């Protein structure tokens, strides 16, 4: 990313790899959740705080929802910055 290349293709390839990386992160998080539900439901059914009713299923589910927003934010910030840098040059 630090390397300066005059080609117009640079920001494009950066977008692609960033998008693919973020997709993979979200997929791993989400399918991890689905797979745990399918193959290790007992783990998800354990309470987050001992004695409480809120279990890891809820915590993990909420984590996936928040992660979606955070990753989208990261993507938008990164692409907007790359855009600004490019138009500044």
């Amino acid at each position, binding site marked *: 990313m630090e390397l300066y290349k005059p080609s117009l293709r640079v920001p494009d390839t950066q977008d692609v790899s960033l998008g693919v990386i973020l997709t993979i992160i979200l997929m791993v998080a989400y399918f991890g959740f*689905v797979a745990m539900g399918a193959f290790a439901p007992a783990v998800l059914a354990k309470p987050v705080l001992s004695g409480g009713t809120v279990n890891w299923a809820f915590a993990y589910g909420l984590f996936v*929802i928040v992660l979606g927003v955070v990753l989208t934010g990261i993507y938008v910030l990164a692409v907007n910055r790359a855009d600004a840098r490019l138009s500044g040059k």
Partner: protein
Amino acid sequence: MPMHRHAARAALTVVALPLATPAFAAAAETSSLNLTAISLFLCFVLLTLWITWKAAQRTKSTDDFYAAGGNITGFQNGLAIAGDAMSAGAFLGLTALVFTSGFDGLIYAIGYTTGMPIVVFLLAERLRKLGRYTFTDVVCSRLSERPIRIFAACASLVVVAFYLIAQMVGAGQLIQLLFGLDYLYAEFLVGVLMVCYVMFGGMVATTWVQIIKAGLLMAGATLIVLLVLVTYRFDFGALLAQAAAVHPKGTAILAPQAAPKDPLSALSLGLALMFGTAGLPHILMRFFTVPDARAARVSVFWAATFMNYFYALVFVLGFGALVMTAGNPAYIGVGGALRGGGNMAAIHLSHAVGGDAMMGFISAVAFATILAVVSGLTLAGASAVSHDLYAGVIRRGRLDEKSELRISRIATFVLGLVAIGLGIAFKGQNVAYMVSLAFAVACSSTFPVLLLALYWRGLTTTGAVVGGTVGLLSALGLTLVGPAVWVKVLGNPAPLFAMDPPTLVTLPLAFATCWLVSRLDRSAQAANDRERFDLQQQAA
């Protein structure tokens, strides 16, 4: 004016109820008329229709339709995108799913939240660079137009049909519950309203209308959530404990139940929910209608935030509905089933926490949202028939606007009839589940073709059409012989294909067919297709 008809029907109900005519006899025992809720409902629906009408009057061009004249902020456009995606079907259906099966319902809600980020990461920027916003436009920009248009129109129609079922069932049950009408009459009423709405409004789901609806839906849902949480002093754990205490399955509802029994279906559902959004024909259109690229990206961030917030509310709505309606004969019928149909959990919850006024308000917001979504879908379906199939393929573009408009009206009317028929056939099915079937078809047909068209140089016209069609037909066929249709609609004892939805088979099948056929394609068209991809890349 459709609303006069509507009001007349309501008035008729009021008059007819004491007489207990046969048509309303069944209704009288399912729910008594609630005048406060009904009048508030009518006020709010009339208000939204008036706003829609006003907005439609000021909408002169397609630019106005999507961009609201171009003076719209990223935040506002984000709300509009969220408004397109957050159907009342999701609101009613997801709450109901949690009401009946606990955490298993939340798996749907969580899955829906992953859809929009995927669209942003993989598609949005590329679409913006190409300057194309619909599936057909993107794919036609590098492949041969006619075969792609035929495939896109067919895929759109199938997805629209499944999506329509969900909205029709939700709207029908809502009208049935509120006005005490028989479900059959309610379906016809919704169908007639929907056709009127599209015919006289034409472009109804303008950006402003979507903004208002998204705002109202989120405000209403937030209010219910706050009222539920106040009862439990904002202790979500206490709410869950109470939910487990009143549900026959006890604490089992606080963790996944279906997934351990059928892991393949669980993974398949996950795939459909995550990648289905990217294949929906009506979702991509509102992207990047704001002045510049920066605002466009900000708007998708807001869209993802609003949608994920909305789906997170289902955590409380679903378990709240379970607790607040438990054991109350006003909400639960004799057999333990919800009055007014299985999708009405959210509506009963609104009554339980906020009385008649709240119920009227929430019903109106839900109904107005359904009407907007249904109209948007009908328009998408009608334009697939009139623009893609008729004008583009049958007449090969030699067609005046007048006859294209006529075909579009006929298509709207036929779609209305089809929607009524489907709504009746799928009565009683959960609407969030029906939406997941639409997602399964979308992510097995249009999504693979769209993704490969954007990223893979080797994709050829034949490969795209054959692969997409194989995905579409297999997803449709396996859904028809699966639990949703083969068992629940046709009444057979066991499904021929148990995996539900069939995405785990059909999505890889579609990708593999696209790839294989494209690789074997040695035609002149194929060489041209690959060359046009390179030209696009250089231009971008």
